[in-house]
């Protein structure tokens, strides 16, 4: 087994008086797409925010490629090569599409601009609306921009939170295609309620329930396991 790119060891996170993560253990293998599944309130998004340092862990250990990152600030974690796409399409509305990309580029090198060519192939409409303010884009476009913006840097780990939320099925299909391309180039952790999407992108999965990992394995096994899906995800 290869060295994990990210580990969480007995991580506890509190938000106010609420004890959200209650000892989460994760081991994320590199160059794969791992999906975090679970019902609403299970702690999936909080897990991503804790990894990113936005909702710091109260206790436990988080390592990125062997380095402890639990006490680092979000901007320091980002500088170590972790990209984050929040669940609320957090593009900057007052900036143009171009400015959103320039904002995301930690170094505006030739290599970064070369990646833009790939991005334009994946999301051609972003090129079309290059000079438009992000606030006037449709919901699907904003989600594309948020994902593409995280992909513009040479990240070693991408955290993507519910990219399909609120999107029409036709846009979800386009998103699946794009994310499958992205996962071939970097390690992805995806939080997703839409099992159709999760199963078409992830190769590994972790199921969270009440702030703990209750099951993990290979996605192809979960697709076949109706009992497990019914028990933890509420789908038959």
């Amino acid at each position: 087994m290869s060295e994990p790119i990210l580990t969480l060891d007995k991580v506890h996170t509190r938000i106010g008086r609420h004890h959200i993560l209650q000892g989460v253990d994760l081991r994320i293998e590199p160059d794969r797409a791992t999906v975090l599944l679970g019902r609403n309130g299970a702690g999936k998004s909080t897990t991503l925010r804790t990894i990113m340092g936005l909702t710091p862990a109260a206790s436990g250990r988080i390592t990125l490629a062997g380095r402890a990152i639990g006490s680092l600030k979000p901007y320091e974690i980002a500088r170590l090569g972790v990209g984050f796409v929040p669940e609320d399409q957090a593009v900057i509305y007052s900036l143009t599409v171009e400015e959103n990309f320039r904002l995301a580029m930690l170094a505006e090198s030739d290599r970064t601009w070369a990646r833009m060519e790939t991005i334009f192939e994946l999301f051609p409409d972003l090129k079309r609306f290059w000079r438009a303010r992000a606030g006037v884009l449709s919901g699907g476009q904003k989600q594309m921009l948020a994902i593409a913006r995280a992909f513009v840097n040479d990240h070693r780990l991408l955290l993507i939170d519910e990219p399909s939320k609120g999107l029409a099925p036709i846009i979800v299909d386009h998103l699946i295609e794009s994310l499958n391309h992205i996962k071939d180039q970097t390690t992805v952790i995806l939080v997703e309620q839409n099992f159709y999407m999760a199963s078409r992108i992830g190769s590994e999965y972790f199921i969270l329930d009440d702030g703990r990992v209750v099951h993990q394995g290979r996605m192809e096994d979960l697709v076949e396991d109706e009992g497990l899906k019914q028990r933890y995800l509420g789908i038959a």
Partner: protein
Amino acid sequence: MSLMAVAPEAEKRTGPGARKTAIWIVSVGIWFLPLVWIDPTTYLVLTVAGLAMGMLLFLTASGLTLIFGLMDVLNLAHGAFFAWGAYVGFTILEALNSLGWVETGTFGQSLLSVLLALLAALAVGGVLGVVIERVIIRRVYDNHLKQILITMGVSLVMAEIIKVVWGPNDEVTLVPAAFMGSLDLFDVVINKFRLLAIAVGGLVLAGTFLVLKRTKLGIIVRAGVENKEVVQALGYNVKRIFTGVFCAGAALAAVGGTMWAIFKEQIHPAMGDENLIFALIVVIIGGLGSVMGSFLGAIMVGLAFNYVAFLVPKLALGVNILIMAIILLLRPKGLLGQD
């Protein structure tokens, strides 16, 4: 239907028609209506005076609107930075005068005197801004009531320190020789320092726009205003950026203070509070957070004040409030304010 069609409701949000119409009506009215009652030569003299006053107001208001718009901080200590700038500029001019540079100097020495006074004010304002943001303001982000109370307290303390250091009495500010008196251009008498004020204001406007709209730093700052969390997650230290914005705003106020001190040829410890009221009116007219709005607001106030002071002197002070009331009735967000 295109998969990526632009959301129609979003298009409506951006509609600039009403905003532009309001700006044009008020701006054109203030510029040209006085020509009905004032002869063209006097009108030109008053216009230059109004532009100069507007540019000086803009210097202070631009810092205030930057700090509010970008950091969501109501900084009532802004006038204190202005007053400190005035006193620092006054001190530098006094020191340079003892070298014979100010009242009797050459054009180069006069220009250098003003530049050194402005640079000193910029530096002192900037350092004070950094200290106050780090020690005090940082603790009250996201709480407007606490911001108002604490910045009022800071303002009082800074004004009292001025009295301790420079004394409580009014002081006369020296005007460098090259900027004393007036030029006569085709019967239009133009005060020399007012031309310099217009040039400095124009440079600050251009510089601010260049940084905010054309640089990576400007993009980061504008993004930080809208969503601090995303900007942090993209790899930027938002706290440090906000300290920089506060520093820049305070430095601009201090520069405005030095220019105002030379313009009015006198300073006093309470001048910060008096100017803060003007700056607040300008920022409200322009729209909170908009640098261009502040510029338009400052020019409007400067011009209207001078025209009305000539036509109906007793109404000169009230005209600023009147403009603010009209603009707020037409457009409650101010000329260029955002939702």
